């Protein structure tokens, strides 16, 4: 039954994809997995070698295992007391190579394998891209590999789906992923756990590709969970420090809450549609669900709960800033460019369902906008360079959710892509800064914090390439034309504005009794203010890091130098993408269309097949509106906000007056303090959720478990024991007694027989 339906669907697709056949689609996914296996084997071999090479007694010097080396390194360089977060600080505490010997092959091979498999995947993705560009692809191509879970009604296939959206995500994941793998070679190759790191990184890419290429919700969920696992493993990569291990656990547990939502959504979908594959769900949903119905609203809200976990939105964003405990390239790849965008991808992928639930869509947009401004306020007052970028990521993800919530799916995915470019560039740049800072501090055995901007300043003289690339990315994120972020962010803000003017399918929808027009006006205002803040905190970061006098210290300064080519080349590539990526989608809007060199809104055209379902529902329900007329003033305002934010930072903040970590205290009072302490949300969650839960757990442990459960078990034992003691008294050892009891028994049996026969025969 299912197979027939599937074959019919395949036949229908064959008509829709213009003769295009994907090339080695499975290998794109498989290659990173092979890389993981190879690197994982090397990591295990290296660990075995280390433990075998040194007798246990000698471990105090030189370190018998990776963990111990970290422990030693940490003991030699304790974190400063004000340092409340885990850092990359101890990356480079490589014990001096003995006898100047070259690193073992277990540390050299991953440098080839890990970026190699990624580049191969990227090449295959490019081959497929060119194939797709040649063909007009209207229907997704589904490749079915084997039957995964044939359970009664539930027929799940291990299947991959290639369409315009998957292709875009595929290119971002493998493309940006390759650059970050190359960067990692320079950044991590001195770490004792290098092969393990590369294995995790490959495994992450494998799961991410499963996520974006999966042809059904459960296959996507496998990738979804897999990337969560790799995120956990990489956040806690330096697990010998408790803060890092805790950050990993926090990420994992917070994500479980979201995954619960995703699961419930899948259950509901299956209960109402009987299928979970994308093509079938999106074909059946418009007929099965009424527009704005309760079921579809519940499904989409649960899906969005999953997205808030993975993509760090209110209320589940708290894990992402802590995730900065991992190595910086991990922050770039997983916690900025790819994994955290999975929620945006999922909402865009499920656009049919979200279109059927306008209320859910408005919730998505509102949560996105609120997250954007909330995270931006926190980013204004952080000293840790990675924290600024972490909150900036949360904020930018909010922009994306605002976009996909308002039905501007292409704008959201566009921002996802440009954000992947400039945020990866910013994170890798900060990684280069931290690397340089750390080497300088390490050379002089200073205990200062390598990630604190108060210890930086004037670095543009020492790290010119890093400075230049980060400047490009900063201009991109601030929304200064013609950098990539300008186009994507402007499209989102423009969508909110035209929605407020009544030109959106959501304009007539109502949420909490308020019309969509009002909500979208609110979102427009919020996002505009956020854009200003974004420019401000990014300007602040650049100012404190690269301008003014250097605050690192007299002796340390001599050790500051630019990082090697494995790190600068990816930076330059990402900077180029941050500069050029926006031209992919130039709308016909005043001022913006200056940059239209004939490509127009290419991304809109490219992604159009993905959102036809959305458009059909909108038209079918009579919600379609005439296109907004585009005025010039919103664009001027957007540019003014971007430039104005940077200018404000330049004018208001004086890096010259900033002391170093010791002399310049953290914000002590007022709103500054509240922002610096992140609105005390962590403390709030700790008080509202963690502590009560721990208290209830302790209560259950002491009262229910140790009292009731253990009481029942112990009681059963005691009853059996005392009954035994009692019955044991009968065993006197006296033969006569035994005989007496035996006779009694015989008499009893006889009496019974007598009664039986008596009744039987009436004797």
């Amino acid at each position, binding site marked *: 039954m299912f197979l027939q339906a599937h074959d019919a669907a395949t036949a229908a697709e064959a008509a829709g994809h213009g003769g295009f056949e994907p090339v080695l689609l499975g290998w794109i996914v498989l290659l990173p997995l092979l890389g993981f296996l190879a690197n994982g084997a090397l990591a295990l071999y290296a660990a075995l070698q280390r433990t075998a090479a040194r007798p246990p007694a000698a471990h105090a010097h030189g370190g018998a295992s990776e963990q111990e080396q970290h422990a030693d390194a940490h003991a030699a360089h304790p974190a400063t007391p004000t340092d409340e977060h885990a850092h990359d600080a101890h990356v480079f505490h490589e014990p001096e190579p003995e006898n100047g010997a070259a690193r073992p092959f277990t540390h050299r091979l991953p440098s080839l394998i890990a970026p190699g498999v990624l580049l191969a995947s990227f090449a295959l993705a490019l081959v497929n891209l060119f194939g797709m560009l040649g063909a007009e692809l209207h229907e997704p191509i589904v490749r079915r590999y084997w039957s995964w879970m044939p359970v009664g009604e539930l027929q799940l296939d291990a299947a991959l789906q290639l369409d315009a959206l998957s292709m875009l995500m595929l290119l971002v994941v493998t493309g940006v992923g390759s650059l970050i793998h190359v960067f990692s070679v320079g950044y991590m190759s001195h770490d004792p756990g290098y092969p393990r790191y590369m294995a995790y990184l490959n495994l992450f890419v494998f799961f991410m590709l499963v996520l974006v290429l999966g042809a059904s919700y459960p296959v996507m969920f496998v990738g979804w969970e897999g990337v969560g696992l790799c995120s956990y493993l990489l956040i806690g990569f330096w697990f010998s420090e408790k803060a890092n291990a805790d950050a990993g656990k926090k990420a994992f547990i917070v994500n479980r809450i979201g995954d619960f939502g995703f699961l419930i959504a899948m259950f509901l979908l299956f209960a109402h549609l009987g299928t979970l594959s994308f093509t079938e769900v999106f074909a059946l949903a418009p007929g099965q669900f009424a527009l704005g119905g309760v079921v579809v609203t519940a499904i989409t809200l649960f899906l969005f709960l999953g997205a808030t976990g993975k993509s760090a939105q209110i209320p589940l964003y708290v894990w992402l800033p802590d995730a900065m405990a991992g190595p910086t390239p991990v922050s770039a790849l997983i916690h900025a460019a790819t994994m955290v965008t999975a929620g945006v991808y999922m909402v865009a992928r499920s656009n049919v369902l979200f279109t059927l639930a306008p209320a859910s869509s408005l919730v998505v947009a509102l949560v996105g906008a609120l997250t954007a401004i909330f995270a931006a306020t926190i980013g204004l007052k952080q000293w840790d360079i990675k924290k600024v970028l972490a909150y900036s990521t949360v904020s930018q993800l909010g922009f994306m959710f605002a976009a996909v919530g308002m039905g501007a799916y292409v704008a959201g995915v566009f921002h996802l892509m440009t954000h992947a470019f400039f945020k990866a560039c910013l994170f890798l740049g900060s990684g280069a800064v931290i690397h340089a800072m750390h080497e300088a501090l390490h050379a002089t055995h200073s205990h200062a914090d390598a990630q604190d901007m108060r210890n930086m300043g004037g670095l543009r003289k020492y790290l010119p390439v890093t400075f230049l690339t980060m400047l490009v990315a900063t201009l991109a994120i601030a929304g200064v034309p013609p950098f990539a972020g300008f186009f994507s962010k402007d499209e989102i803000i423009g969508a909110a504005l035209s929605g407020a003017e009544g030109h959106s399918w959501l304009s007539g929808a109502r949420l909490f009794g308020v019309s969509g027009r009002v909500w979208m006006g609110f979102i427009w205002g919020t996002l505009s203010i956020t854009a200003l803040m974004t420019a401000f905190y990014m300007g602040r970061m650049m100012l404190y890091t690269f301008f003014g006098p250097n605050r690192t210290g007299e002796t340390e300064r001599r050790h500051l130098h630019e990082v090697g080519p494995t790190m600068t080349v990816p930076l330059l590539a990402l900077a180029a993408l941050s500069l050029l990526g926006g031209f992919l989608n130039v709308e016909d809007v005043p001022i913006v269309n200056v940059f239209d060199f004939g490509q127009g809104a290419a991304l809109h055209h490219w992604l159009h097949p993905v959102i036809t379902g959305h458009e059909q529902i909108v038209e079918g329900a009579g919600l379609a509106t005439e296109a907004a007329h585009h005025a010039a003033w919103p664009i001027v305002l957007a540019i003014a906000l971007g430039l104005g934010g940077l200018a404000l930072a330049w004018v208001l903040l004086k890096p010259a007056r900033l002391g170093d970590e010791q002399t310049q205290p953290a914000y002590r009072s007022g709103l500054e303090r509240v922002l610096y302490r992140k609105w005390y949300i962590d403390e709030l969650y700790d008080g509202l959720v963690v502590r009560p839960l721990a208290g209830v757990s302790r209560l259950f442990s002491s009262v229910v478990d140790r009292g009731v459960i253990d009481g029942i078990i112990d009681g059963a034992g005691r009853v059996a024991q005392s009954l035994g003691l009692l019955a044991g*008294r009968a065993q*006197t*050892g006296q*033969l*006569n007694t035994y005989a*007496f009891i035996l*006779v009694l028994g015989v008499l009893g049996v006889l009496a019974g027989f007598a009664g039986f026969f008596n009744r039987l025969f009436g004797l």
Partner: protein
Amino acid sequence: MTNTAPLIPLSWSLALSAILFSVGVAGVLVRRNAIILFMCVELMLNAVNLAFVSLSPRVGIEGQVFVFFVIAVAAAEAAVGLALIISVFRHLESVDAKNLSLLRW
């Protein structure tokens, strides 16, 4: 050949058997000397033998066959039982069942 001797009524034989059996049971219950106990057990066995024999004319020859089995088993039992008693006596210098109470709670 006619049987002229007056037949002992069946009920008399069974009554004797029951009395003998009861005597045996009472002996097992009240006496302590292991040898007496042993003899009482034999008495019970032979009371049953008497019942078998007296019932056999009415029921069949199997009753008499069974008696031989019982005698054979009783002989074997006597051999084992007396050996045990002698062994116990060597150990404890007594055959009083009151002293044979090592296996108890």
